[in-house]
């Protein structure tokens, strides 16, 4: 699945938030969206979730205009792990995951063996098979996030969009989630807060500033200490991670 955002602009309350943004993600590629608060990361993602219609430009999935698809058709092409999730009181984990099958069902269809198997394998893939009969409210933040990832997997969409998926998670859960999404073989577009995580996990980063693309490319080419200082106003050190050897970014307050 190839994602193309071409000249996308978006307006909220008559205020332009993103302006003429071009972003692409090739099949199986992990593209991380980074930038300061208010730079337009979430707004850009909303044009891909279809919760905010772009005021200009076009979002294409394998050449097809995402905003011209029917809602269920779009959901079969791209799944989302949104930033704002309400924990539904009174739904079990399996019931929450099963809602992801919506786009594959007609209103009168009952849940069949395929759906149940899809729910079970998705939960297994995120390591949450044991929790199928638990209530969502009994799970920890990291566990809930993995359940919502399982829900997205049941959509069987080749593109997964994630809005700061590691927010509010403990470090173990953060790394577990990142390893997990990278192992899925899907095209990934994720807004990430943590530059170090973006550098370590993404194939390419897109840096947003004031609603425009300030730079994009492989992490080590884009996220140079000078560029990080210019965008985020912090000092940065870029080098191999002492444990994993992956790209690693350490930051410190500006002098």
């Amino acid at each position, binding site marked *: 699945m190839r994602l193309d955002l071409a000249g996308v602009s978006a307006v909220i309350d008559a205020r332009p938030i993103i302006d003429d943004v071009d972003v692409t993600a090739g099949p199986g590629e992990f593209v991380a969206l980074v930038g300061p608060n208010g730079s337009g990361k979430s707004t850009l993602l*909303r044009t891909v*979730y*279809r*919760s905010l219609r772009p005021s200009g430009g076009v979002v294409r999935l394998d050449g097809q205009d995402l905003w011209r698809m029917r*809602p*269920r*058709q*779009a*959901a*079969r092409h791209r*799944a*989302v792990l*949104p*930033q*704002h*999730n*309400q*924990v*539904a*009181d*009174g*739904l*079990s984990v399996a*019931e*929450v995951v*099963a*809602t*992801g099958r*919506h*786009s594959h*069902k007609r*209103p*009168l269809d009952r849940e069949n063996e395929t759906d149940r198997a899809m729910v079970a394998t998705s939960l297994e*893939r*995120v*390591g*949450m098979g*044991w*929790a199928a*009969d*638990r*209530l969502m*409210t*009994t799970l920890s933040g990291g566990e809930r996030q*993995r359940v*919502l990832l399982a*829900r*997205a997997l049941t*959509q069987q969409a080749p593109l997964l*969009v994630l809005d700061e998926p590691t927010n509010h998670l403990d470090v*173990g859960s953060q*790394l*577990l989630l990142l*390893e*997990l999404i990278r*192992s*899925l*073989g*899907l095209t990934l577009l994720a807004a990430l807060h943590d530059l170090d995580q973006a550098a370590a996990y993404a194939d390419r980063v897109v840096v947003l500033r004031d609603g425009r693309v300030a730079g994009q490319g492989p992490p080590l080419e884009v996220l140079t200490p000078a560029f990080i200082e210019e965008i985020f106003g912090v000092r940065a050190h870029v080098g191999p991670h002492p444990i994993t050897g992956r790209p690693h970014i350490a930051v410190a307050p500006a002098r």
Partner: protein
Amino acid sequence: MTDTLTAPPRTRPAPSRRPHLISGPATGVLLAALAAGLVAALVVGISVGSVNLPLGQVWGVVWAHLSGRGAQADPLLGQVVWEIRTPRALLAALAGAGLSVAGVALQALVRNPLADPYVLGVSSAASLGAVLVPAIGSTMLAGTLGVTGAAFAAAMVSALLVYLLAQRAGRLLDSWLVLTGVAVGYLCTAATTFVQLQLNPNELQGMMFWLMGSVAGASWQDLGVPAVLIVVCMLWLALQARALNALLAGEEAAIAIGVPVATLRVGLLVAGSLLTATVVSVVGGIGFIGLMIPHMARFVVGADHRRVLPVSLLAGALFLVLVDLAARIADRPNELPVGIFTTGLGVPFFLWLLRRRARGGADAA
């Protein structure tokens, strides 16, 4: 695609308890039990009243009517059983079902557990419509609409007003819906109070009964519209059950899953206010049911709308038939307002269920 995980997921012991008190095939048993209970309650509701009538004769009349020989029944007995008790018991069932289903729809719409059929100001507006009839004069309003029609019209106007005021850029906002509804409701209540002051005591007497809510005085003509609307709204909601479940996780999550959220929410508003306006215009403002019955259903079968909807429908109908029965026989031959019983019986049961659920620890987060 690979399924390998570099970090092993932490695991917890398997749960010993099902997530819901009742799930799977047991839900079917529960629905059958509720349906049987409803039929039994209707039978008792028709058999018992403020005057004692022999059971054999009561059911003789019902049987005569059901088999098309109603005209042969004893006129006075027939009047009491077929024209008063039977429509009354049926109206109680319809009103209870309608308010409960409206509650499910509106709680899903505003995603707020405190939402009920009256949160959008629909009930207050219906009351205003009803008191306006004698105030303005029978010639203008009552001639064309009647009290019921005026109440219904006012309720729908207020729902439309709330809908128009609570959207921004074509999207309905949860918090605005609740706040706008409450504000419009207060406005209607104030207007109702003002109009009541202008009425003479006789007119006020009739209004009081209406404002407190009652299924007394039901006639067969009152049943048709609510029955049709409940069936239509219930079928539509049942078709949306999966989408409603998705909406529980939030608007963005539902959009991501492929739910046409904007259309769905307009549908929920229409269904919820149509049901509420219809019921309120016939039986007045009966509180509590639309708020509590859906919650009780969720405590027992979980939040999945495929189970909550039918359980709420049947439980709401059963509850109001029983409550109306209690209101009729508790202080015979006088009748007590049904609202005293909806809350008087419902609140203790609700609190018991709430505490039992907390103690069960099934979802002690």
